């Protein structure tokens, strides 16, 4: 049991410290390299460094490599490979934006490592009143699920701190389930992802000092899907990210197909002179979660962050209720 505490401490402290130090370093170095982007939701439109995801990816790779040499387990190897592949896709996307269709297709390749290790997952889809055995479709679903979760988490990066705060909260049902079922081994594997996100949140929260970029959002999204599959908690994970799924679905449905945000001619949210955000009244603007939240009138960015966190807490509560029913 003492050894367990040591490993747990290792998987909590190491990624937190690595992410904290690297992110602090990136905040200083990235503006000098002109790797900055405009924060559109502020009056003075400040320039913020955007490759913060590098710190998250690097710390997860370091921590999971250490854990792999301790446990020599394929589940850790899968997490490592997926982190590396999605980080590379994210970095390329940050510098040379992929088209809206090529990104999901590329992310499908990131899920291929799971298919090679068939003993790491079962073919059952765990629904509320029982399991469905979908042995033929399940491998295809894995490929799609990783790509979908990565893109879904990517689209929730809408305001300062939302991506990191939202994903941190969405990990709660998974962590709770692993603790209640005494699956401490999986908990040790998952903790580096959560703690590196926590360290990143310190700098990403309102007002943001750094943005994660696609490097961060795609990596964490793909890892979220991977963890859901490896722990057989697909349904709980799905319910926990309901708000992000809703945002993604509304955006795709209203803009009639997959589109990159810069391709949208009419922005869903406009900024007022006092710095508050307001819903666009243009019928051609896409429908997004933010636009729905602004239907009752303008609101500040900080208030909107709090509202999205409230919605996410509601979603994870539903996920926890489902867990208790299962």
């Amino acid at each position, binding site marked *: 049991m003492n050894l367990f505490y040591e490993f747990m401490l290792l998987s909590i402290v190491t990624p937190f410290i690595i992410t904290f130090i690297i992110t602090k370093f990136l905040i200083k170095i990235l503006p000098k390299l002109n790797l900055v982007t405009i924060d559109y939701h502020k009056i003075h439109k400040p320039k913020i460094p955007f490759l913060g995801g590098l710190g998250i990816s690097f710390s997860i790779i370091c921590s999971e490599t250490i854990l792999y040499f301790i446990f020599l387990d394929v589940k850790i190897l899968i997490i490592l490979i997926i982190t590396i592949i999605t980080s590379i896709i994210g970095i390329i996307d940050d510098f040379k934006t992929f088209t809206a269709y090529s990104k999901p297709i590329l992310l499908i390749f990131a899920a291929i490592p799971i298919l090679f290790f068939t003993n790491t997952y079962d073919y059952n889809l765990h629904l509320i*009143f029982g399991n469905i055995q979908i042995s033929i479709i399940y491998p295809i679903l894995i490929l799609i699920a990783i790509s979908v979760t990565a893109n879904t988490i990517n689209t929730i990066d809408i305001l300062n701190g939302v991506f990191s705060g939202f994903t941190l909260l969405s990990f709660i049902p998974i962590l709770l389930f692993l603790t209640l079922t005494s699956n401490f081994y999986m908990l040790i594997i998952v903790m580096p992802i959560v703690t590196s996100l926590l360290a990143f949140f310190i700098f990403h929260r309102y007002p943001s000092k750094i943005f994660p970029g696609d490097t961060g959002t795609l990596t964490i999204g793909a890892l979220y899907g991977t963890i859901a599959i490896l722990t057989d908690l697909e349904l709980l994970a799905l319910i926990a990210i309901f708000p992000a799924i809703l945002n993604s679905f509304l955006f795709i449905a209203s803009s009639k197909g997959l589109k990159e945000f810069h391709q949208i001619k009419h922005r869903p949210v406009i900024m007022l002179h006092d710095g508050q955000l307001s819903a666009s009244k243009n*019928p051609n603007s896409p429908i997004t979660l933010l636009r729905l939240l602004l239907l*009752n009138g303008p609101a500040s960015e900080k208030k909107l962050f709090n509202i999205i966190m409230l*919605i996410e807490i*509601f979603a994870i509560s539903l996920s926890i209720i489902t867990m208790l029913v299962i």
Partner: protein
Amino acid sequence: MLRESWFVLFIIFISWLILFLISYFIFNILIFLPQYTIYFGLILTDLFQFSFIILILIIYLIILFKLIRRYLKYKLKY
């Protein structure tokens, strides 16, 4: 904050209920179907159960999107 978020919270709650209903329907009504579909092999049961979930989801998503769009038109008056 509830004033701004009640509509989204309502959609999330309804979506969660629909998930419960689909699950209940599959395990309490369609449970009898595999004994008929077993003659066609595993592929049919697999595809049948899965395509059933997808079908309900698609119908639900279309209705949901139309309702949200109508609500948006009403609130923004365009």
